[in-house]
């Protein structure tokens, strides 16, 4: 029973983190059309910012969420307003842009990863935060806190999309950017905000990951792969699909890890293939 409870709580946490990472990629790819191969590098950046602030000025990782969220949002917004916007304006079609922006994001991957390696080296680091367990349970407090944070952020983002003017403009632009422009939406601003938000979610996920797992400067790519699986699983461009897909993959990953840790990635691909056979357009795809 205790094992089952642990699997569920850790699975939900991991699922929440995967959902955050995947919703981020979904904003970058589904809306802004940048298949950002460097997505995971911003998870790494969020994790190391947290580690650095924690080990140098003893900043509480919960505060770091704000720091990495805002800082990485600005990076994303800036990257889109300069690099990706320019690529978009010079591409004759969306297909050409998708190809070029993916190549550009490969470059980004190497730049971010190498800068991080110069600063923090390639050894493993850890943020020891709330690692004591709650009385009477085996669950470390940091996992419960992270799970709470993921739920709050997910809820806040849902509210933002469903209720605010900018949130509606994002949903409209995801469906039909040209028509959103005819409604008065400045499409370049919306795409830059989406790209910034996507990276910020990766950064926040990185902060949460750093409080639970050991971190390394080469940790990013595995999360990029997971996010890509989830985004396809959820249905390309579907933000709610990415959320659901992330939670499912997180729980499955914990189940498999509990019984057979070496099989985790194989299990991801198995789910991926089976779901694509059953629902080729993804969970929420149309």
């Amino acid at each position: 029973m205790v094992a089952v409870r642990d699997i569920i709580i850790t699975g939900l946490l991991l699922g929440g983190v995967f959902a955050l990472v995947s919703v981020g990629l979904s904003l970058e790819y589904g809306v802004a059309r940048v298949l950002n191969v460097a997505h995971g590098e911003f998870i790494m950046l969020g994790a190391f910012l947290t580690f650095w602030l924690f080990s140098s000025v003893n900043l509480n990782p919960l505060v770091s969420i704000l720091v990495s969220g805002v800082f990485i949002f600005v990076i994303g917004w800036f990257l889109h307003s300069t690099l990706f916007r320019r690529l978009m304006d010079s591409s004759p079609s969306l297909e050409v842009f998708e190809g070029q922006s993916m190549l550009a994001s490969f470059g980004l991957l190497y730049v971010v990863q190498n800068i991080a390696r110069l600063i923090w080296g390639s050894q493993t680091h850890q943020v020891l935060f709330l690692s004591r367990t709650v009385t009477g349970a085996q669950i470390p407090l940091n996992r419960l806190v992270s799970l709470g944070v993921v739920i709050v952020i997910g809820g806040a983002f849902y509210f933002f999309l469903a209720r605010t003017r900018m949130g509606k403009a994002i949903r409209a632009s995801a469906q039909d950017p040209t028509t959103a422009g005819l409604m008065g939406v400045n499409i370049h601003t919306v795409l830059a905000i989406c790209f910034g938000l996507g990276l910020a979610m990766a950064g926040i996920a990185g902060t949460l990951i750093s409080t639970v797992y050991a971190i390394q400067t080469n940790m990013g790519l595995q999360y990029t792969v997971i996010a890509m699986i989830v985004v396809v699983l959820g249905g390309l461009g579907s933000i709610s699909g990415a959320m659901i897909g992330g939670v499912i993959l997180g729980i499955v990953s914990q189940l498999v890890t509990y019984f057979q840790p070496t099989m985790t990635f194989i299990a991801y691909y198995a789910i991926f293939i089976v779901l694509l056979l059953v629902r080729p357009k993804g969970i929420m795809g149309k």
Partner: protein
Amino acid sequence: MLEVNGINAGYGRIQVLWDMSVNVGEGEFVALVGANGAGKTTLLKTISGVMRPTSGSITFLGKRIEHANPNQIVNMGLSHIPESRRLFTDMSIRENLEMGAYPGRSWKIRRATMKWVFGLFPRLEERAGQLARTLSGGEQQMLAMGRGLMSRPKLVMVDEPSNGLAPLVVTEVFQILKSLHNEGITILLVEQNVRQTLAVADRAYVIENGHLALEGACRMLAASDHVRKAYLGL
């Protein structure tokens, strides 16, 4: 109000519009007619900033807009209701209308504007919470028109609103256009339904293969031999 002057435009290397000039005066109801592929939609897209002309000028309310972005143009009071509706199908009817009121000025008064739009299209109010994709073809066209009015435009360009609708609904669409015109809104209408169009509009332009073929008061055009043969089947 709107002056299009010697526009050339196209897609990549293919030129579609040749030296096109169109004028719409304040309070006018002007129509653009022409066969499939004549370039009517391309002209509207060039005016609303979705496409850039390769040469020529476009002036709206005294300001040059041929290099402006669509969002700037709708902010100035020129609304483009696109061909085949282009609704946000995964959003509710209310949210589609809200998107139409996106420009800052109209966003503040969106509730009052929505009341006015619901007055024009009562069926939209009954279904306000439904997703746009669950509407019938006629209702979808009403929503597209309502959405295009939410920015409180001075001039609306409507691209083939009667396309694919049953005759009764087509008549309804034309009646609504007429009542909008009576409310003082300037209209530039693209239509294939030439007979009904010439009956409601003041003036019309006939476009053939990207060139301006004829222009004049609707009454005169309806009497011309060329229009009668080519567009009215008489």
